[in-house]
C-alpha cells in the first residue's frame, strides 16, 4: 500500500502559464546576473534578457488566444480578458523598457540614478557620475510579472500576492530618478507608505469577505453571495475595503492624491510605464473581482462605483485646469480617465467589460507616448515640465508640438482618434437606466478637460518661448514609443473596428 501523501501534487499547466513564468524566471536570472556579471557585461545582458523574455512571453500570449481554462489549482485563470490584458501589458512593457534604455536625451546618461543609495548632492554621488546602473532591470521584470498575474488571479490571496509583487519594485524604481533626486525620493516614500496602507486595506477587506462567505476564490464568493443574501454587514464592509484598496491602484478619487506627487517625482520613463501599465493591470483585476466574484451583488456596489466614477472625472478634470506642471496635468487627467473607465465597470455587463478593455488599451499607448515625449523637452536643469517652458515649442520643433497636440487631443476624445473610440465604447455601455447621469457627468468633465489640454496646445503654438528650453533628439527607442502611440491614436480612431472587434472576440470572464 502506498503512502497517502498529506497534500496532492499540485497540477500546474506550465504551457498556459508561459508568459508569467518566463517573465518571473527572467527576473530571477536577472538578479543572478546582477550578482555575478561584470558591469560592462551587465549593461549588455540585462536589456537583452528583458527584451528577450518579453518577446517570448508575448509570443506565448498570442498562443493562448483561444484558451479558456482555470489553471494552477484554481489560483489563476486564462481566459479572453486575461490574454488581452496580458498582451497589452507586455507590449506596454516593451515600450516602457525602450524608454528606460534612452540615453541620448540627457547628457548625463540614462534616466536612473547611478546609485540610488548615495545622498543627493554628496561627493559620493558625484563619484558615480554618469555611470549607468542595471539594478532597474530585475525590478522592472518583477513588476511586469506581478502585473501579468494580477488580472489573471482567481482568488483574493493570489491577487494580493500579485499586487505586492508588482507594487514593491515600483516603489523602489520611483526613488531612482537621476535628476531632482530629493523629489524622487520623497515620492517613493509617499508611494510606499500609502501603498502599504492600501495593501493593508485590501487585505482587511479580503479577510472580511472570507468571514462573510467562507471562501477566498472568486467562484466560491460568487456562490456564497448568490446563495445567502443576508450576509449583509460583513460582506458590505469587506467589499468596501477591497474596492478602496484597488481604487488606490487605479488612482480613482478620492484615492488619487498620491498620483500627482509620484508621477512628478518618479523618473519620467518609469512614470510612463507605470501610469499606463498599472492602470491596465489594476483595472483588469478590479473588473474580474467585481464581475466574477461580486457580479451577483452588482446592485449593491454599483452606486458606490458610480459615486467614485463621478468624483474621479470631476476632480481630475477640474483640478488639472490649474496645474502648472505638465506631469501633474497628465496625472490629474489620468484620474479623470480612471473615472471614465469606471463608467464602463459600472455597467456590470459584457458590454461594460469590453468597453473598459477598449478604453484601457487605447489609453495605455497614448499615455505612454505622451510621457515618453515629455523627456525630450529639456532645460539645462533636466526635463522642462513646467507648462510655461513648453510655450512656443512649435517654433523649436514643429514635429514634437504636432505630435504632442495630437496625443492631447486624443486624450480629450476628439472624434477620429482612439480617445473617441474609447469614450464611445465605455459610455455606450453605461448609457441607459440610472447610470445615464454618470455618463452626463462624464460628458461635462470631458468638456472641462478639453480646456486644459487646449491650454497646453495654445501655449505651444501661440506663445513666445524660453530660449533655454531645447528639444533633444531622442534615440530610436523613444521614437518608437511615440510612433506607436501616435499610430494607435490614429488607427484605432479611424478604424476603431480593429480594436472593438479584437476585444469583442475575447468574450467574457471565465468563472
Amino acid at each position, binding site marked *: 500500500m502506498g503512502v497517502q501523501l498529506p497534500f496532492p501534487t499540485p497540477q500546474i499547466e506550465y504551457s498556459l502559464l508561459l508568459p508569467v513564468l518566463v517573465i518571473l524566471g527572467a527576473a530571477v536570472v536577472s538578479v543572478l546576473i546582477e550578482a555575478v556579471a561584470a558591469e560592462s557585461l551587465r549593461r549588455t545582458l540585462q536589456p537583452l534578457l528583458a527584451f528577450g523574455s518579453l518577446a517570448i512571453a508575448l509570443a506565448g500570449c498570442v498562443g493562448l488566444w483561444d484558451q479558456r481554462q482555470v489553471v494552477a489549482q484554481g489560483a489563476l485563470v486564462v481566459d479572453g480578458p486575461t490574454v488581452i490584458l496580458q498582451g497589452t501589458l507586455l507590449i506596454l512593457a516593451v515600450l516602457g523598457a525602450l524608454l528606460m534604455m534612452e540615453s541620448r536625451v540627457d547628457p548625463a546618461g540614462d534616466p536612473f540614478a547611478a546609485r540610488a543609495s548615495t545622498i543627493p548632492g554628496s561627493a559620493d554621488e558625484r563619484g558615480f557620475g554618469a555611470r549607468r546602473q542595471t539594478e532597474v532591470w530585475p525590478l522592472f521584470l518583477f513588476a511586469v510579472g506581478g502585473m501579468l498575474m494580477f488580472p489573471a488571479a482567481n482568488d483574493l490571496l493570489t491577487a494580493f500576492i500579485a499586487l505586492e509583487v508588482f507594487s514593491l519594485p515600483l516603489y523602489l524604481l520611483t526613488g531612482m530618478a537621476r535628476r531632482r533626486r530629493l523629489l524622487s525620493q*520623497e515620492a517613493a516614500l509617499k508611494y510606499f507608505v500609502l501603498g502599504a496602507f492600501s495593501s493593508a486595506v485590501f487585505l482587511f477587506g479580503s479577510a472580511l469577505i472570507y468571514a462573510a462567505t467562507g471562501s477566498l476564490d472568486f467562484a466560491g464568493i460568487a456562490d456564497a453571495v448568490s446563495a445567502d443574501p443576508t450576509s449583509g454587514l460583513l460582506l458590505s464592509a469587506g467589499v468596501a475595503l477591497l474596492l478602496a484598496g484597488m481604487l488606490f491602484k487605479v488612482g480613482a478619487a478620492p484615492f488619487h492624491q498620491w498620483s500627482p506627487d509620484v508621477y512628478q517625482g518618479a523618473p519620467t520613463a518609469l512614470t510612463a510605464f507605470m501610469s499606463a501599465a498599472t492602470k491596465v493591470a489594476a483595472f483588469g483585476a478590479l473588473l474580474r473581482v467585481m464581475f466574477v466574484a461580486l457580479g451577483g451583488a452588482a446592485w449593491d456596489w454599483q*452606486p458606490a462605483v458610480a*459615486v*467614485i466614477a463621478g468624483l474621479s472625472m470631476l476632480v481630475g478634470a477640474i483640478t488639472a485646469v490649474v496645474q502648472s506642471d505638465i506631469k501633474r496635468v497628465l496625472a490629474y487627467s489620468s484620474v479623470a480617465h480612471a473615472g471614465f473607465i469606471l463608467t464602463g465597470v459600472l455597467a456590470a455587463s459584457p458590454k461594460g467589460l469590453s468597453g473598459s478593455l477598449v478604453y484601457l488599451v487605447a489609453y495605455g499607448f497614448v499615455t505612454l507616448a505622451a510621457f515618453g515625449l515629455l523627456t525630450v523637452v529639456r532645460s539645462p536643469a533636466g526635463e522642462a515640465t513646467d507648462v510655461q517652458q513648453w510655450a512656443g515649442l512649435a517654433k523649436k520643433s514643429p514635429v514634437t508640438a504636432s505630435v504632442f497636440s495630437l496625443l492631447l487631443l486624443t486624450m480629450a476624445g476628439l472624434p477620429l482618434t482612439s480617445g473617441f473610440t474609447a469614450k464611445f465604447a465605455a*459610455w*455606450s455601455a453605461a448609457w441607459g437606466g440610472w447610470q445615464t447621469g454618470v455618463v452626463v457627468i462624464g*460628458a461635462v468633465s470631458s468638456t472641462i478637460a478639453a480646456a486644459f489640454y487646449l491650454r497646453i496646445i495654445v501655449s505651444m503654438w501661440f*506663445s513666445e518661448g524660453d530660449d533655454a528650453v531645447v528639444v533633444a533628439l531622442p534615440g530610436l527607442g523613444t521614437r518608437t514609443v511615440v510612433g506607436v502611440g501616435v499610430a494607435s491614436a490614429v488607427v484605432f480612431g*479611424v478604424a*476603431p473596428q480593429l480594436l472593438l472587434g479584437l476585444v469583442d472576440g475575447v468574450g467574457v470572464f471565465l468563472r
Partner: protein
Amino acid sequence: MTASPALLVAVPLLSAAVLLLTGRRSDRWGHWLGCAAAVGSFLIALNLVLSLAKQPHESREISQTVWTWISVGGFNVDVTFTVDPLSAVFILLITGVGSLIHIYSVGYMEHDDNRRRFFGYLNLFVAAMLTLVLANNLLLLYVGWEGVGLASYLLIGFWQHKPSAASAANKAFIVNRVGDFGLSIAVMLTFVTFGSVAFPEVFAAADKASSTTITWIGLALLLAACGKSAQFPLQSWLLDAMEGPTPVSALIHAATMVTAGVYLVARCHPIFDLSATARGAVVAVGAITLLMGAVIGIAKDDIKKALAGSTMSQIGYMMLAVGLGPIGYIWAIFHLLTHGFFKAGMFLGAGSVMHGMNDEVNMRRYGALRTAMAVTFGTFAIGYLAIIGVPPFAGFWSKDEIIKVAFEHSWVAGGAALLGAAITAYYMTRVMLMTFFGKARWADDAHPHESPAVMTIPLVVLAALSAVGGWALLHVVNLETWLEPVLGHGEGELPFSSSLLLPLTLAVVALGVAAAWKVYGAGADIPVSAPRGSWFIRAARADLGGDLFNEKVLMQPGQRLTATLVRVDDSVVDGAVRGIGGFTTALSARLRQAQNGFARSYALVMVIGAVIVALALAMVRFA
C-alpha cells in the same frame, strides 16, 4: 461624369496636409496651391450639383460610402458623404465664396511671413466644413463640427504675437465647448433612442420616439447651434474672434462656419417638426439674438466688430426663421445664402479699407474714403443696400420673406424681425457714413489707396452676387422648389393684408436710414475719440453684458469651484482637523512637526473615501 463627393473633401484636405507638412519649402508657391485646391473643389461641387439637377426632382441624392467607421452588433456608422439639395447649396456656397476669399487672401496676406500656413488652415477649414454639410450621420457631422472649430481657433489666434488674438482664440474654444457638449449629448440621445445616428434612419423613426426625448434632442441640438452660430447666450466669442485676419472673419465668422448652427437645425428638421417646445426655444433664441446683435452693432466704432454684431443679428434672423417650422426652413436657408454673399463682400471690403489705412479699424479715423477707394466703396455700397433690404438687392428678397413668415407665426416674432430691420438700417448707414462720407479724420501717416486687383476682383464678384443673387436664386434657380424635397413646404397666413407688408418694411428701413443720416450724415461732426454716450450706448459697447454673463455664470463659479477643489485636494484634512477642536489641533501641529509632506493627510482622505464607499454600499443594502 459625376465626380465623387469624397473627392470634394479630399482635395482641400490633401492640400492642407501638403502646406502644413512641407514647411518653409512650399512658401513660394503654397498660396497658389491653396487657391487651386479651393477652386478645384468648387469645380467638383459644380459638377456634383449639375449631376444632381439631372436626377428626378423628388429623389435627388448622390451618396458615397468611403468606409465603415464603426460596426458593433447592429450598430453601424459609415463615413458616408451625401449630396442632396440642401447640402448642394452649401457646398456651392462654401467652395464658391471660399475660393474668392482664398484669392483675396493672396493679396491681403502678402506681407505675412506665415502666409503658407494661413492657406493651410483655410484649406483645412474648407475640408472640415464640407465634411460637416456632407455627413449623412450625426457622428460624422460631429467630426466636421470639431474640425471647423479647430480651424477657427487656429485662424483666430493666427497673429499669435498679439496677446488679444491668443486670448480670443481661447475664449472661442471654451464657449464653443459648451455648445459641443450639447451636440455630444444629442448624439448620445439619438444613438440610445434610435440605435442609429444615420439621418435617414433617425428621421424615419422620429415619430415613434417619446415626445419628451424628442424635445430633449431638439434642445441639445439648439445648444450646439447656439455655440457655433454665436447665438444668445453663447454669443460673446464672435466679437473677439475679429482678432483673426479679415479674410477669416469673412469666410468663417460671417459666411460659412457660424451658419452651421442654422444648417444643423434645418438638417434635423424632422426632430424639430415634432416638438413645439424645441421650435419655440429656437424662435426665442433667434429673436433675442437678432435684436441684441443689432444693438451691439450700433455702438461699435471698430468696423469689424460692428459687422460682427451685424452677423450675430443676421444669423438671429435665420434662427428665427428656422424655428418657425415648415413655413420658415426654406427662407432661413435662402437668407443664409444671400447673407453669405453680402456679408463676405462687406467684410472683404472692410479688409480692403484696413489694407489701405495701415490696419486701422476705428471708424472714427476713417471718413471720406469713397473717392480714395472707389471700387471698395462701390462694392461695399451694394452690400449695404443688400443687407438693409432695398429692392432688388439680395437681402431684400430673403429678409422680406422672413419678416412675412415671422408675422405668420406671431406678432411678437414679426415685431422683433421688423424692429431688427429698422436697427439694421440704422447701424449699417452709420458704418457707411462714418467710413466713406463726411470729413477725412485719418491718422497723420495714413495714405489711403485702392487695393490690388487680386483683392478687388473678389469684391466685384461678391458685389454682383449681392446685387442680383437674391432675385436669381428665387426666380432662376427656383430655390423653393429645389429645397422642397428635403425641407418640405408650409403655408402660413398673415394676420393682416399681405399688400401692407412691403410698404411697412420699406418705411421702417427708411426710418432707420433717416435717423442715422440725422446723426452721422452731412456736416455731422464725428469726434475722433468716442464720447461717453448714453447708458444705452455704453451697454451696447459692453456687448450688452455678454462678457459679464460669461464671467458671472461660467467663469467665476468655475474658478471658485476649481480653487475650492484644489484647496480641498491639497489640505482638506488639515482644515478638517483644525475644525475638530483643540486637542486634535495640537496633535496635528505635533504631527506636522514630526513629518513633512502630506502623506498622512492623503492616507486620511483614503480612509474617508473608504468610508464613503462603505456608506454607499450600506445605504443600498440596508435602506
